[in-house]
């Protein structure tokens, strides 16, 4: 197997392309809690290290409303470069809602309002002046159920780069397809059947195809919403392994219901509870010594 690393295309859009949307809000920080202390269940302040040096994404006072109902309350959180951050919490806690804020997927939901600053590389993306099409190339998304297009494997990957104009000719497009498939660890398995439909692959392969498709448009951030919940343990292990490799180049934000998966793949963990961000911290610490009683209750299986 020859090992030619082709350069991936530069991101579909550069922050400079955006009309300058100034960001000038004071940065909210977390409540400091001594290491050995625990915070009682009724507290809803965020504790832990929610700010990082040179964040890829900085969220300041983000609120989401579905109609009159406030789904998430004043979230302050940084997402660092080249890190995997896991968002965990019970169903309905707002973690997926928050994830969808990061590439404006909530725009597609009727009656959904998002306010607050979501600053990606210095630009507030939560702004009407932002074009969401290039944004979603820059912040890609992988869903719970693998959803390849009903087209060939090659087409599945080539589609994004083509519409974003990332390739001049068929040759460049081929390069992108091959590189993306290799990066997603799928090349070995599909290189001799690129013209076959993507839907003919196994669930795990389809999910890696979706990841390859996301990578193909040169994102900076990859959002994953329970990417392994429909997969068997082997396919899950492959995806997790892949996430670990992709971290070198991308920022990854993953929502998962599997606590073990969060512990395995992420460097930071954020625990959401009924719309509040309760605790953020290094995954190693959150899973050995959480500081908030709600976090402890959730990860140890003491619900309600």
């Amino acid at each position, binding site marked *: 197997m020859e090992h030619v690393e082709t350069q991936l295309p530069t991101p579909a859009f550069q922050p400079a392309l955006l009309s300058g949307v100034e960001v000038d809000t004071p940065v909210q920080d977390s409540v400091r809690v*001594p290491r050995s202390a625990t915070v*009682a269940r009724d507290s809803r302040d965020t504790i832990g290290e929610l700010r990082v040096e040179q964040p890829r994404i900085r969220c300041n006072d983000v609120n989401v409303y579905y109609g009159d109902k406030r789904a998430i309350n004043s979230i302050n959180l940084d997402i660092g470069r080249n890190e995997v951050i896991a968002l965990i919490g019970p169903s309905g806690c707002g973690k997926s809602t928050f994830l969808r804020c990061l590439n404006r997927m909530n725009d597609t939901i009727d009656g959904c309002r998002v306010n607050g600053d979501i600053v990606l590389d210095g630009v507030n993306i939560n702004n009407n002046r932002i074009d969401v099409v290039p944004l979603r190339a820059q912040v890609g998304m992988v869903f719970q159920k693998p959803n390849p297009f009903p087209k060939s494997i090659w087409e599945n990957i080539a589609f994004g780069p083509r519409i974003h104009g990332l390739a001049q000719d068929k040759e460049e497009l081929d390069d992108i397809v091959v590189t993306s498939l290799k990066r997603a660890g799928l090349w070995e398995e599909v290189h001799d059947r690129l013209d076959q439909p993507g839907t003919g692959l196994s669930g795990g392969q389809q999910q890696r195809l979706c990841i390859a498709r996301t990578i193909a448009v040169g994102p900076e951030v990859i959002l994953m919403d329970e990417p392994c919940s429909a997969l068997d343990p082997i396919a899950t292990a492959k995806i997790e392994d892949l996430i670990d490799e992709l971290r070198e180049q991308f920022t990854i934000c993953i929502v998962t219901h599997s606590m073990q998966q969060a512990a395995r793949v992420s460097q930071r963990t954020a625990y959401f509870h009924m719309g509040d961000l309760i605790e953020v911290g290094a995954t190693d610490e959150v*899973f050995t010594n*959480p500081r908030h009683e709600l976090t*402890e209750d959730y*990860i*140890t299986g*003491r*619900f309600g």
Partner: protein
Amino acid sequence: MTRTLEGHTVQRYNGELNNLHLRVLEMGGLVQDQLRHALLALNKKDVSVANTVLEREHTVDELELGIDDDVITVIAKRSPVAGDLRVIMSISKTIADLERIGDEAARIAHLAKGLYESEHSQPSNHLMRDVTTMGELALQMLQESLESFDSLNVDHARALVCRENELDIEFQSSLRRLATFLLEDARNVGHAIHIVLLTKAIERVGDHARNIAEYVIFMVRGEDVRHRLGSYCEASNTASDPVAPDEDRTH
């Protein structure tokens, strides 16, 4: 019982953790009894009591193996995290220390046999006095460490680990006294060696008991205080904990 062991949605998990906790206490009780009898054998110069201790030694070992098995099963089945993980790890370490205390008790029983089984002269009560005092101190420390493990009470555990190590001080001064006895009469040397081995064994028991108290602090608070007792004890003396007093951890 405390929330440390209970409150899981899966009821059986509560049962498993509680059961482990009880089994450790059972082992602790047995080890304590072993130590008490080993010291009794010394005090009463009773070789049969020493033999009982030696016969029961394997029961301690079996308890350790059994609890270890249960620990592995719980890890495999439940993938414990956070507080649960700390409980499991602390239990696993506690039983290792308990087993070592059991070994020391057996060693003491063995030495008692050596001293009182033979035809040779027996050490004077004068020489044995330190052994008795230290034995009582060690029993007391073991008792306290097991109580703090039983009630998962950090305050009790802290009191034990932060207290001056009397046993160690006694051991040092016992060595000095033995040296004086030897200078007075070199024929004491055989007994002196026996007594050093005895006091050393007893001194070890104290260290294991303190280890157990350290695990209790780690289990309940997530604070690993090993090898930094100085700063820990200093900090806990000055700062009262405003956020979560220990009482809040229990129902």
